[in-house]
């Protein structure tokens, strides 16, 4: 698809407000910088141009038909001769939303450098990672990529490309602002709408295709993985990745670049089971830290930024994990998305359900005790009271959990259980004071489990196992639900008694 | 409607016994010598008085009067002979059959010549409205006030060269003139004989009409080159009403509103005031301009000698729309607001709502609340003729601590009034010290505003007001508490439902 899309900059020397204007120059871009955000569909474009001005009022027209530029964001800065050249106002002509005029008063003739800055949508970037773990899952090679997509309808050639890691707040979508019709140009806009919508639909398709392709091609890097230095710099709550040199960001031509390539990242595997997702199966996670790599003696290794962790946060993105056997055969372990990881924090990448560690949970016993009926009365109407009974009783369940590790190495496991009443826990810290209380609740006795027991919140309890290969663990615990004032009513003898 | 629609035709009977619609001779078509409109603004009614000179011949004269396509009330039409009353008599008034827009007067004359007559009737469709333009100075302490009256004529009739009088006040009308005007024939019977003539008044009227005519003629001779002052408006009280008479004559054209200056006063002392009240939400300040409808005073405090047109306190101010501007020193105007004002009696204060003011802000926070002094009390209630029931109600005190942050973003000093509403009868600890009933065990809202450095005014049982004079850019943080003493609150506790016989 071809677009007559380049934002045009026309310089006019206005003799009278609407008299004939002289086109003076059509300056080209001297330099372009793209700052692309990944949390929102927004890219900041900075262009530097050299304007030739004459003394007096200069009118400069800037137009951007068929692009996705947000007209409210366009900003004009004079970079030199600021004392002699003034921006008077910015005028948006009637009925159009793809052009504006700057009125500049100049006290000089000559060239002045200006910066034009605006937001556009349609350019995005994404991070993705390929991790290759060694066979005993203690170390991993990690390669990070960034991928830039341009569906903005505009070619940015020879541009400096910068990527922002972070979640900015955007109160209105740039694409909406770009499409918003000019206040009085309703008819004009209706005519254009069809064409634009087709463009957006096509864009969406393209992005979807890209995603699919990404998933399929997995690690066979047929894309152009050029090694370019990526400079990483913190800025407020974000990080900016600056790609060294200049790039041509062409319309609908995705670009993929290596953002980091780190070898020998210390890795641990952890297996978690939780009632929050069914409590049937263990899920395997790879854990590693976004920290600078250490050498054998515990000192920070002297590595270039591109080959080290802990230099910048890891942007969220897709992670594909492989495991490399001693014979260098690869096995695909899984793919998952990861969240943003701050410097110093731990990454926990879900590798998927793991069937090598099994959990069988049995209710070994259950019993009801301490049944007491208490009589209550309730007023029915103005003359009668009804007497009825509610029950108090304690219901105890004895669970046995049998956990077997089929892994050839030591593994760490975490089990989280949910109880349906407020938990009173007898765990690693001894019997609580309230253990014999008569209040309703779930009285969980995990004290025989040889682990620290952690109370996560009112209903969740966690325990930890360090498992040797082939060993079977049997964990037994007990929960007593103290039920109080339980209906339906008993002894509703249906006799009514007069008030008194 | 182009053609004039009121027609007066004098018919001379050859034979007085001839039938009413027999052959008649058209004698004259007298024109209006003078017209006076008295326009009321409370009801759609205007009294029209026309003076005409009839040329009569001895014998029976038949005069036809018709008013097609107008809004004249046929029942109100009155005919009076102003001179030669001894020689000329109105015999009867006849409404022709099938028509509601014409009548005939039969006159017996003992003379030949011109006689002045007055025709008086009510019409609807002519109304007037007052409106005002106030232009305050930059400091908002003085205002130029121009009052206008706007006369609207939708009656279908052109009244040229008319004296215009406007009545301020409410009159009672049992039937709408517009209804009477459109009522189909046969019309209702003509009302009783006209009120006793007042020859002096008539003469005065005539003389005045003639003097105006003379003045007009002389001005015409001057080619209209004479400088006109703004028209004077004479204001006089009349029973419960006020009558404004506009100097000179005006053409009151159909469907062409006309706006005339009724007063033009400079340097009216003005005070802006900003009010916030819970009666309208209690969120925003509303700005009001205050001035008095009193004669202006000079610097020494003596009444200024000004013409009635240029002074306040000469008449009530009729209700109408007020548009307020403020004028900067460079004569630029800023529109401040427009609002309707009510009738303002002489001597009263006018308070014109200028609209919401966003320069002064109020942030009210409920900082804390607490419940104290909970006591349960046993009561008994008689249930029927034989039994009493025992039950408990509770008493408790609920305290709310409020903080009000008021900021003035005005460039000048400003006077503020804040009125708060409390949901129970207020016992106030305000500027006058702790009241005697402060510790009483009686239900109510105990409002403690004594820390506010202002006079605290108790408006009524539920409303309390305080006053602030702020400087530009000043911020106030005021704290007050209210303790609602709740007494005897249900639902019932400890309803043992035991019934006990009456003793």
């Amino acid at each position, binding site marked *: 698809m071809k677009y007559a899309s380049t934002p045009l900059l026309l310089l006019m020397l206005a003799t009278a407000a609407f008299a004939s204007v002289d086109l003076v120059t059509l300056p080209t871009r001297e330099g372009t910088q793209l700052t692309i955000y990944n949390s929102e569909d927004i890219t900041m474009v900075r262009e530097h141009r050299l304007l030739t001005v004459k003394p007096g009022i200069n009118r400069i027209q800037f137009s951007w038909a068929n692009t996705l530029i947000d007209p409210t964001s366009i900003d004009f800065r004079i970079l030199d001769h600021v004392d002699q050249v003034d921006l008077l106002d910015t005028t948006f002509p009637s009925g159009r939303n793809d052009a504006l005029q700057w009125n500049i008063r100049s006290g000089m003739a000559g060239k002045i450098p200006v910066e034009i800055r605006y937001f556009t949508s349609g350019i995005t970037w994404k991070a993705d990672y390929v991790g290759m773990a060694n066979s005993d899952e203690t170390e991993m090679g990690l390669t990070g990529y960034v991928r830039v997509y341009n569906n903005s309808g505009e070619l940015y050639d020879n541009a400096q490309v910068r990527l922002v890691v972070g979640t900015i*707040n955007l109160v209105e979508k740039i694409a909406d602002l770009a499409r918003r019709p000019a206040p009085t140009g309703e008819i004009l806009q209706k005519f254009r709408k069809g064409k634009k919508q087709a463009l957006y639909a096509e864009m969406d398709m393209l992005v979807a295709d890209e995603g699919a392709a990404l998933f399929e091609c997995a690690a066979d890097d047929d894309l152009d993985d050029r090694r370019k230095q990526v400079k990483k710099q913190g800025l*407020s*709550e974000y990080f900016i990745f600056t790609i060294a040199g200049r790039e041509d960001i062409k319309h609908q031509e995705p670009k993929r670049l290596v953002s980091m390539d780190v070898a020998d990242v210390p890795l641990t595997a952890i297996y978690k089971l939780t009632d929050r997702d069914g409590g049937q199966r263990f899920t395997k996670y790879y854990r590693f830290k976004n920290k600078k790599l250490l050498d054998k003696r515990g000192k920070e290794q002297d590595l270039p930024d591109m080959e080290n962790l802990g230099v910048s946060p890891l942007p969220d993105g897709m992670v594909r994990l492989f495991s490399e056997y001693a014979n260098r055969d690869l096995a695909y372990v899984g793919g998952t998305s990861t969240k943003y990881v701050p410097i110093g924090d731990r990454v926990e990448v879900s590798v998927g359900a793991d069937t090598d560690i099994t959990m069988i949970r049995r209710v070994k016993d259950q019993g009801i005790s301490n049944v007491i009926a208490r009589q209550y009365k309730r007023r029915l109407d103005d003359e009668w009271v009804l007497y009825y009974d509610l029950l108090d009783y304690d219901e105890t369940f004895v669970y046995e959990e049998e956990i077997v590790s089929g892994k050839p190495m030591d593994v760490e496991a975490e089990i989280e259980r949910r109880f349906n009443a407020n938990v009173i826990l007898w765990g690693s810290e001894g019997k609580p004071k309230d253990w014999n209380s008569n209040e309703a609740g779930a009285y969980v006795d995990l004290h025989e489990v040889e682990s620290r027991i952690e109370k996560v919140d009112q209903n969740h309890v966690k325990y930890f196992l360090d498992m040797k290969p082939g060993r079977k663990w049997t964990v037994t615990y007990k929960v007593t639900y103290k039920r109080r004032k339980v209906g339906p009513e008993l002894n509703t003898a249906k006799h009514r008694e007069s008030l008194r | 409607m182009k053609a004039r629609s009121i027609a007066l035709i004098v018919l001379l009977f050859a034979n007085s016994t001839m039938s009413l619609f027999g052959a008649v001779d058209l004698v004259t078509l007298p024109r209006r010598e003078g017209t006076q409109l008295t326009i009321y603004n409370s009801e759609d009614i205007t009294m029209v008085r026309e003076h005409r000179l009839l040329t009569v011949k001895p014998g029976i004269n038949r005069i036809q009067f018709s008013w097609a396509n107008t809004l004249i009330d046929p029942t109100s039409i009155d005919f009076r002979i102003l001179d030669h009353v001894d020689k000329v008599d109105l015999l009867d008034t006849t409404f022709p059959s099938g028509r509601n827009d014409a009548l005939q007067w039969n006159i017996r004359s003992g003379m030949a010549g011109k006689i002045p007559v007055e025709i008086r009737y009510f019409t609807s469709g002519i109304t007037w409205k007052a409106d005002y333009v106030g232009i305050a100075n930059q400091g908002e302490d003085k205002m130029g006030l121009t009052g206008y009256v706007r006369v609207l004529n939708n009656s279908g009739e052109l009244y040229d060269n008319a004296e215009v009088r406007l009545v301020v006040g409410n009159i009672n009308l049992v039937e709408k003139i517009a209804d009477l005007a459109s009522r189909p024939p046969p019309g209702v019977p003509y009302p009783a004989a006209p009120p006793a003539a007042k020859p002096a008044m008539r003469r005065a009227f005539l003389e005045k009409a003639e003097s105006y005519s003379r003045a007009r003629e002389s001005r015409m001779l001057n080619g209209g080159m004479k400088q006109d002052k703004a028209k004077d408006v004479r204001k006089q009280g009349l029973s419960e009403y006020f009558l404004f008479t506009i100097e000179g004559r005006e053409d009151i054209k159909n469907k062409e509103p006309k706006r005339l200056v009724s007063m033009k006063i400079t340097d009216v002392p003005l005070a802006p005031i900003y009010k916030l009240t819970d009666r309208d939400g209690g969120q925003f300040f509303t700005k009001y301009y205050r001035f008095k409808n009193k004669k202006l005073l000079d610097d020494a405090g003596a009444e200024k000698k000004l013409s009635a047109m240029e002074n306040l306190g000469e008449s009530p101010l009729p209700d109408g729309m007020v548009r307020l501007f403020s004028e900067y020193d460079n004569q630029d105007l800023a529109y401040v607001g427009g609002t309707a004002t009510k009738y303002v009696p002489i001597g009263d204060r006018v308070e014109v709502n200028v609209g919401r003011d966003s320069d002064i802000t109020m942030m009210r926070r409920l900082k804390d609340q607490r419940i104290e002094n909970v006591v349960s009390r046993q009561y008994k209630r008689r249930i029927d003729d034989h039994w009493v029931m025992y039950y408990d109600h509770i008493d408790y005190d609920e305290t709310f601590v409020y903080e009000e942050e008021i900021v003035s973003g005005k460039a000048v000093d400003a006077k503020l009034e804040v009125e708060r509403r409390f949901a129970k009868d207020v016992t106030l600890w305000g500027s006058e010290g702790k009241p005697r009933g402060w510790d009483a065990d009686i239900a109510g809202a105990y409002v403690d505003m004594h820390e506010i450095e202002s006079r605290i005014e108790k408006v009524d049982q539920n409303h309390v007001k305080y006053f602030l004079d702020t400087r530009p850019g000043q911020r106030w943080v005021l704290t007050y508490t209210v303790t609602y003493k709740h007494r005897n609150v249900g639902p019932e506790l400890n309803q043992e439902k035991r019934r006990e016989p009456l003793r």
Partner: protein
Amino acid sequence: MKRIVITGLVGALVGMLSIPAQARIKLTTLPERETVRVDIKNGRFTLVEEERTVNLQQGRNQVDFSWANIGIDKDSIVFRVIKADGDVNVLNTNYPNNENALYWTVSAANAGPAVIRISYLIGNMSASASYQGIVENDEKSLLLQTYMTVQNTSGEDFGKCTVQPGVGKTTVRYFKNGERKRMLASKFTAVPIEKRFVFDPTVDQKRTRMYYRLLNDKENNMGEFPLPRGKVRLFIKEPKSDDDSVRSQAFLGEDWGAYTPLFAKLDLYVGVAQDVKVERFTMQPKGGPRKVVDELTCPRILMNGERTVTHPRFRHQRTRFRYRLQNFKTANGEPIPVPLTIQEHVDGEWIIENVEMKEILGERNDVTEKVIPHDKMFLAKRIDVNNVEFEIDLPPTTIKKKYDLFVTILRKHRRHNVEPIVYKD
């Protein structure tokens, strides 16, 4: 094409005589507008003032004023004589039927030019504010620029005119119907920023947000006028790099700036602070299930005056939250503390009953917990009865060192249904 037409008519005769409308006298002057001022009070009205010079004849003059395609509030028109030789009076104003026109009958003491100013209200002009903030690299202060965008849909093409859009004042050379103009209306330099990290579970359960707080007062280099509502776009100055001749500015984020009166604070949500993590859990009160509510007693006064004790319909309810706090924020590669604000929303009568800060060291089975003094790093601020803020100076954390903050809120005097009364026998 001028759409507002003003015509001066000189009455040769007039006087008290009626002149038929059709027979208006010849048009003698058609004065140009000299200055025009457009004062936009947004959402309410727009006042246009124009000055013209009319050549008046001695005696009565008829001045016509007509317009097309523009919504003028007829009743709002004010006619003022700014400069004239001798007295000039408006005798009356006439509104011809069904016309966008009126004429004044003006009497002049002397013949000659008179400068008149006509002011009137029109519809369909609007102005909106937007802001650009350029934040210093250290995020301690910013330059705040107010832009006003004025839209002319009035139907009228204005030539050179002064536009006052509520804030600021600009003279433009032309302003055609349908156009919008954006102009710089004000500039505040070196406005101090308070950077805040805010966790509010009612807004976002998972993420901490970064806010800038500005104060609209003189001390903070603002306080000139209440800030109108508008979008604020924030850019940050980057450290100067070698290959960039002009310092780069990165986009930080945007937010709607609320209408901000003088002395009031303006909070701007800039973006997510992903390095500061807060997780919130609801825990049981420290004393176990029996401490969920505090039953209250009150004196009971019987009919016979005897004093006993009973349960009123109030009781206190206790809520305990655990906040897991982690801070991975770095500056120049070094971990740094951050000021964290946790917002909770309560209602009615309440107190913060208990606060406990625990340092959690280690992981899994090797965890040690230690209660640490919190008075230096924790402050509970009651904003009003519905809002409380916990301000925490959060030191840096690592994977093996975290903080747990426990806060117990006692909500007092909550109404509850009276329990069934146990039958005692």
